[in-house]
C-alpha cells in the first residue's frame, strides 16, 4: 500500500476537530458538563452540527438524524474535507423521504468523533494538546445525552422523529429509552439493542490494526506528528467487507482482474476487489481520526440496552408513547434481521406502536445508505402517518 501517502497534515486534522468547517457549533462551558457513563464529566465540550430546512413556529417538526460509526454531521450537503455529497442525500433533502421542505433536520457529530464535536483529536483545554487516549471512553448513551443538551440549547422540547442506521440506529433506540417523551417517532434502521460477540470481534480486529501501526505511538500521533494511516486503512478495509455481502461483492467484482489480463504472480492488487478495498482504506484515512475509530467502535461494543433495564429490553420501552418503525435488510449479516426482530419483540411486549419491514436486497448492511426505493417508500409512509398523528400538514402527492 505504498500509495497511502497523501493525507491532511496534523494541524489541519486538529483544526477540523476544534473549528469544524461549514458547521454550526455550540460550546458547553463549565456550568454544563457532560456526565459520562465512565463516571467522569467532560467539560468544557462542544457539539458540531448541521441543520437543514426550517423549524415551524410550534417547534414540532424537528427530525434528529443520528450518524453511523464513520459518518458525521454532513448528512445532506457536500463534505468539507472530501467534497463528496452528504452521506444520506438519497434520504434527506428537498422532496426526499426525510423532506427538508417539511421538516427541520438536525444532524450532530457524535461525542468521540473527529468532525468538530469533542473527541480524542480535539484539544484538551487542560493541556492545550490533543486529548488522545486521555479522552474518557464514550458510550452510545453519552452521545445521546450530548444531543439532548443540543436540543435544549436549540429550544426544542421534543422532536418529531429520530432516525438513523447502524450506530445511528443504536442512538435512536437509546433516545426512545432515555427520553420517551421527547421522541414522537423513532426510526431505527439496520441495528440492534446490543452489539453481538461477532461484531465486537470485528471491531477488535480493527482496533488492533490501528494500534499495531508504529505511527500510532500509543495514541499520541497528533502530538508526535505521525499518522497511523496504514493501520486505520486496514481497519477500514476489514470493516468494509462486513458492510457488504458475498452476493454484492460477487456482483460488483467477481474474480475480475484490475487493469490487467493475467495475474502478475505478485502481491500487487491483481483483483478488482483488492483495488476497491485499498481505495476504501485510502480515502477513509483522509477524513477520519484513528483514535476516534477506537472510541466509537468501543461505544458500539458497550451498547447493551437490556443491561440498563434489568436484562429485559422491553423494560426500556414500557408504556412508551413513541411510535416505532424498525427496518432491516435481508443480506445484512452485521445486524441481521433477527436483531431487528428482537427489537420488535421487545416493543410488542412493551405494548409499543411498532412497524417492522425487512427489505430484500443483496447490498448488505450498507443498504441503508444506498438507493433502495422500498426503504424510501417505507420511511416516507411512516413519517407521513406520524405527521398526521402529530398534526403536521401532510402534502398530497
Amino acid at each position, binding site marked *: 500500500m505504498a500509495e497511502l501517502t497523501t493525507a491532511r497534515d496534523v494541524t489541519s486534522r486538529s483544526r477540523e476537530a476544534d473549528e469544524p468547517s461549514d458547521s454550526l457549533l455550540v460550546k458547553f462551558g463549565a456550568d454544563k458538563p457532560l456526565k459520562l457513563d465512565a463516571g467522569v464529566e467532560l467539560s468544557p465540550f462542544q457539539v458540531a452540527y448541521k441543520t437543514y430546512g426550517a423549524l415551524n413556529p410550534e417547534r414540532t417538526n424537528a427530525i434528529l438524524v443520528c450518524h453511523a460509526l464513520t459518518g458525521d454531521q454532513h448528512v445532506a450537503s457536500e463534505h468539507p474535507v472530501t467534497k463528496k455529497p452528504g452521506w444520506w442525500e438519497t434520504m434527506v433533502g428537498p422532496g426526499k423521504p426525510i423532506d427538508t421542505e417539511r421538516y427541520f433536520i438536525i444532524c450532530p457529530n457524535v461525542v468521540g468523533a473527529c468532525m468538530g464535536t469533542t473527541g480524542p483529536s480535539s484539544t484538551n483545554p487542560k493541556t492545550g494538546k490533543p486529548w488522545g487516549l486521555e479522552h474518557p471512553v464514550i458510550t452510545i448513551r453519552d452521545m445521546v445525552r450530548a444531543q439532548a443538551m443540543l436540543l435544549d440549547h436549540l429550544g426544542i422540547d421534543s422532536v418529531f422523529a429520530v432516525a438513523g442506521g447502524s450506530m445511528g440506529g443504536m442512538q435512536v433506540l437509546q433516545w426512545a429509552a432515555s427520553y420517551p417523551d421527547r421522541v414522537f417517532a423513532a426510526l431505527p434502521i439496520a441495528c440492534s439493542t446490543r452489539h453481538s460477540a461477532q461484531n465486537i470481534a470485528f471491531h477488535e480486529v480493527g482496533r488492533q490494526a490501528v494500534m499495531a501501526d508504529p505511527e500510532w505511538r500509543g495514541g499520541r500521533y497528533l502530538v508526535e506528528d505521525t499518522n497511523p494511516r496504514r493501520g486505520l486503512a486496514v481497519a477500514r478495509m476489514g470493516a468494509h467487507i462486513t458492510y457488504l455481502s458475498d452476493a454484492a461483492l460477487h456482483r460488483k467484482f467477481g474474480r475480475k482482474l484490475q487493469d490487467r489480463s493475467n495475474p502478475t504472480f505478485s502481491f500487487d492488487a491483481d483483483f478488482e476487489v483488492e483495488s476497491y478495498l485499498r481505495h476504501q482504506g485510502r480515502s477513509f484515512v483522509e477524513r477520519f481520526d484513528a483514535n476516534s475509530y477506537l472510541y466509537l467502535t468501543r461505544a458500539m461494543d458497550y451498547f447493551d440496552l437490556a443491561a440498563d433495564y434489568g436484562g429485559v429490553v422491553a423494560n426500556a420501552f414500557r408504556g412508551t408513547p413513541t*411510535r416505532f418503525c424498525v427496518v432491516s435488510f435481508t443480506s445484512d449479516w452485521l445486524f441481521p434481521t433477527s436483531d431487528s426482530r428482537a427489537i420488535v419483540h421487545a416493543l410488542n411486549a412493551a405494548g409499543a406502536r411498532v412497524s417492522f419491514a425487512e427489505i430484500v436486497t443483496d447490498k448488505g448492511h450498507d443498504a441503508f445508505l444506498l438507493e433502495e426505493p422500498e426503504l424510501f417508500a417505507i420511511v416516507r409512509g411512516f413519517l407521513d402517518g406520524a405527521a398526521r398523528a402529530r398534526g403536521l400538514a401532510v402534502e398530497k402527492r
Partner: protein
Amino acid sequence: MMLSRLKTDLTMAGAARVAGGTRVDLLLVADMVAQGAKVLDVGCGDGELLRLLGERRGIDGRGIELSREGVNECVAKGLAVIQGDADTDLADYPNDAFDYVILSQTLQATRHPRIVLEHMLRIGRHAVVSFPNFGHWKIRLQVGLGGHMPTTDNLPYAWWDTPNIHFCTIKDFRELCRVSGAKIERAVALNAWGAPLRLNVPWWFWNLFGEQGVFLLSRSG
C-alpha cells in the same frame, strides 16, 4: 406505487363489495369492534381492514402480515404493521394487550388453528374470526357429486397451489370454539352475495347456505 400488487388480494377477488369498493365481510367485522378499541389484525394483507377500522371506528390498530409485499405496502400507508407469522409470532405478545384480535380470512391458512385461536383469546379480550365455510352447498356439491376439490370465486386456488391448508365448516368452527374455551358472543353467516343471512335460522341452515362465517368470541369464564 412501486410495490407489486398483493397476491393475497386474489383470495377475495370475487368477494362482495358495497358501493365504494369495501368488502362486505370487512364491514361486518368492523361492526363487531367497539369505537376507539386497541386492535391487532393478524394476517392484515394490504391493510384494507385496518384502514377501514381506523376511519370508521377510530381504533388504535396494529397488524401482522406474512408477505413482505403486504407489510411494506402497509407501512408505506402509515399503518403499524410488522412482518410475522400467525403460527409462530403470536406467542411473543403479552396477555390482554389488545381489546380485539382479528383473524380475517386467514384461519384456514394457519398451520395450527387451535393454537392460533387460543393465543388470540389470550392476547385480546375479544377475538373476531372470519373464514370461508367449507360446508356451503356449492362446495359440498363439487366434492360430493363433482368428485373434485372445490374452487369458487372466493377460493380460486387449485388444490396443489392453495395456501389454505385447514378448511373448516361453520359447524366445525363451533366445535373448535368449544374445545378452545371460546364463548361465541355473536355469529353471522354471509351468503354468496355477501349479505348476512337472516337470523333465527338453525345452525345447519347457516352451515349449508352461509358462504362465510364471522364470529365474535371471548374467553369463557
